[in-house]
């Protein structure tokens, strides 16, 4: 199996500012990889290096089994879709699509064939004679995708293509991009800082922070077994509850939070295994049950309700557990009031525990 894209020991710095630091990622052919990370972590920079728009300070970029580190953008077999669309304003949609092909000296009939095919796939045929100024945001984004599509590239690069659109349109285009990927099955690298987009689109997600890869795995693994505290806090909304705890070893290991003992028996330890000491115990609000469902779970306690936030589908409850802030989700059909004591429970098997330096235990 050849790799669609390989990033090998890639580093990039602007002067003394290091933006990407010895990054290694292998992306399989046909894979949909999402780069996720907070603003300024170097996602766009990485994409630009892959595209050949920025020179790497060190390391190699391989695309479809070729070392393209020194090649021009046009020779890399990539197409790129930008956040600001970057359509040529003075050209019609048709010209926008055909410009790259014209520049490469392709024959006219072949150009019109490709433009027609891309227009059909993206359903922009009625717009071909218009200029970008006369298009809506979603239509512009489709044209921008079309510009990459006509070039018949192996790898698609998307730099936050949907972040300028409103929520509804974003959801629609998200599905379209997913369909497009299923139809074309070429490699796609997609930058976003929207975790819903990341979770729904990705085969694998690469989470970056400060130019360093934090975790590269399937959305499900990243969600349920985050590699460190940063990833755990970054994924999921509302965020994971983090409780300061003490891990006690022995015959009956447990996480001690204040006076409460959460049994550690169900928790599957990674790597280092069970090492006694201070830890952070993380549990997602949606993995906490309240009321009767709580009774069956391995750990049960009572907490006071401080704030109730109805969110439509469910309700978020803010409370305090052993003096530490604790949120959990309940069904929106509930009868709780602020100040009530409520019985909650959760299963340590679904929790995430991090050591003092933030790595998963």
């Amino acid at each position, binding site marked *: 199996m050849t790799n669609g894209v390989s990033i090998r020991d890639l580093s990039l710095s602007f002067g003394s500012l290091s933006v990407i630091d010895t990054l290694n990622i292998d992306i399989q052919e046909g894979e949909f990889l999402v780069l996720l990370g907070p603003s300024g972590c170097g996602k766009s920079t990485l994409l630009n290096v892959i*595209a050949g728009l920025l020179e790497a300070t060190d390391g190699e970029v391989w695309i479809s089994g070729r070392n393209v580190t020194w090649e021009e953008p046009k020779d890399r077999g*990539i*197409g790129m879709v*930008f956040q600001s669309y*970057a359509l040529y304003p003075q050209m019609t949609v048709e010209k926008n699509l055909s410009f790259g092909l014209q*520049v490469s000296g392709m024959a006219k009939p072949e150009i019109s064939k490709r433009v027609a095919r891309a227009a059909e796939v993206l359903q922009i045929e009625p717009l071909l004679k218009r200029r970008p100024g006369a298009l809506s945001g979603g239509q512009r984004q489709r044209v921008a995708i079309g510009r990459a599509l006509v070039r018949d590239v192996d790898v698609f690069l998307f730099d936050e293509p949907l972040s300028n659109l409103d929520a509804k349109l974003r959801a629609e285009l998200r599905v379209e991009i997913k369909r497009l990927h299923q139809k074309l099955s070429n490699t796609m690298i997609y930058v976003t800082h929207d975790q819903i987009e990341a979770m729904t689109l990705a085969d694998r997600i690469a989470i970056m922070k400060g130019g360093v890869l934090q975790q590269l795995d399937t959305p499900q693994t990243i969600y349920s077994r985050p590699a460190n505290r940063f990833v755990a806090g970054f994924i999921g909304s509302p965020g994971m509850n983090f409780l300061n705890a003490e891990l006690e070893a022995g015959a009956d290991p447990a996480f001690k939070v204040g006076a409460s003992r959460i049994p550690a028996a169900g928790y599957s330890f990674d790597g280092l295994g069970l090492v006694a000491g201070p830890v952070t115990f993380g549990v997602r609000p949606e993995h906490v049950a309240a009321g009767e469902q709580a009774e069956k779970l391995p750990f049960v306690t009572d907490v006071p309700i401080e704030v109730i936030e109805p969110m439509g589908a469910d309700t978020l409850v803010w409370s305090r557990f052993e003096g530490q802030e604790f949120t959990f989700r309940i069904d929106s059909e509930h009868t709780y009031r602020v100040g009530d004591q409520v019985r909650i429970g959760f299963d340590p098997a679904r929790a995430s525990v991090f050591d003092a330096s933030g790595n998963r235990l």
Partner: protein
Amino acid sequence: MTQTNPAVARGRKPKKMSPARYGLYGLLVISATFFLTPLYVMIVTSLKPLEEVRLGRLFSLPADITFDAWIKAWSTACTGVTCAGISPGFVNSVQITVVSVLISVLLGAVNGYALSFWRYRGANVLFGILVMGAFVPFQAVIYPLIVFQREIGIFGSLAGIVMVHCIFGMPIITLIFRNYFSSLPEELFKAARIDGAGFWQIFLRIMMPMAVPITAVAVILQTTGIWNDYLLGLVFGGRDNQPMTVQLNNIVTTSYGVREYNVNMAATILTAAVPLVIYFLSGRFFVQGIAAGAVKG
């Protein structure tokens, strides 16, 4: 509080002439008068026969209108030894201006484009030097330029004067274009590179079509600047390429006997007409271009 308008506030707010408005309009009228009076005097004088001019009634309208002075200024007035009016100067000025504007604007556009998108090594230093060039008083470099042009044998030719105008126009035109191109989204340039377009293709097919307003500004600035130039034309034009301004000066200063004020006025108006017409025709374009550059830059 005055209760003059008890009606509910609804729809368009009625406009009121406040004292500040009266003051503003007053000021506008005064300054317009201030600038238009000389023009008025020039026009009426140029339409009077010489006898009437001598009466010295500067502001009175001409008793009988005659275009003799205009015809003389254009075709028979003496500019030194020759007596062919300022029409040869007009032709020279058109030649000099058209060629110089074309070359300098094109060079400035390419410079600005290269400086804002192709960040090659030393680009910033080059830009700094260019900007400094905009502040060097040209009187200081005239002599070295004369020597240089004499050495390469173009001193006094059309090529010589065009070269001088291009050199002195370059910094400001480059600056204008660089600022304009810097205001365009960089992703546009990146998209074009991914599409495989090279330096010239991006310039000609993507950037220049977007730079029409700023090009208009550059053309207008250069046209008026070069047309109104006197010193460079006098020094570098030689005998055969004297621009209209130089010939105008010759008409006004060489007078045998009587000073023909009406002819002088007509010649002056003819010389000033070109930039004026350009401003009138392209004023709106000009303001738009300036605004586009200013807001986004």
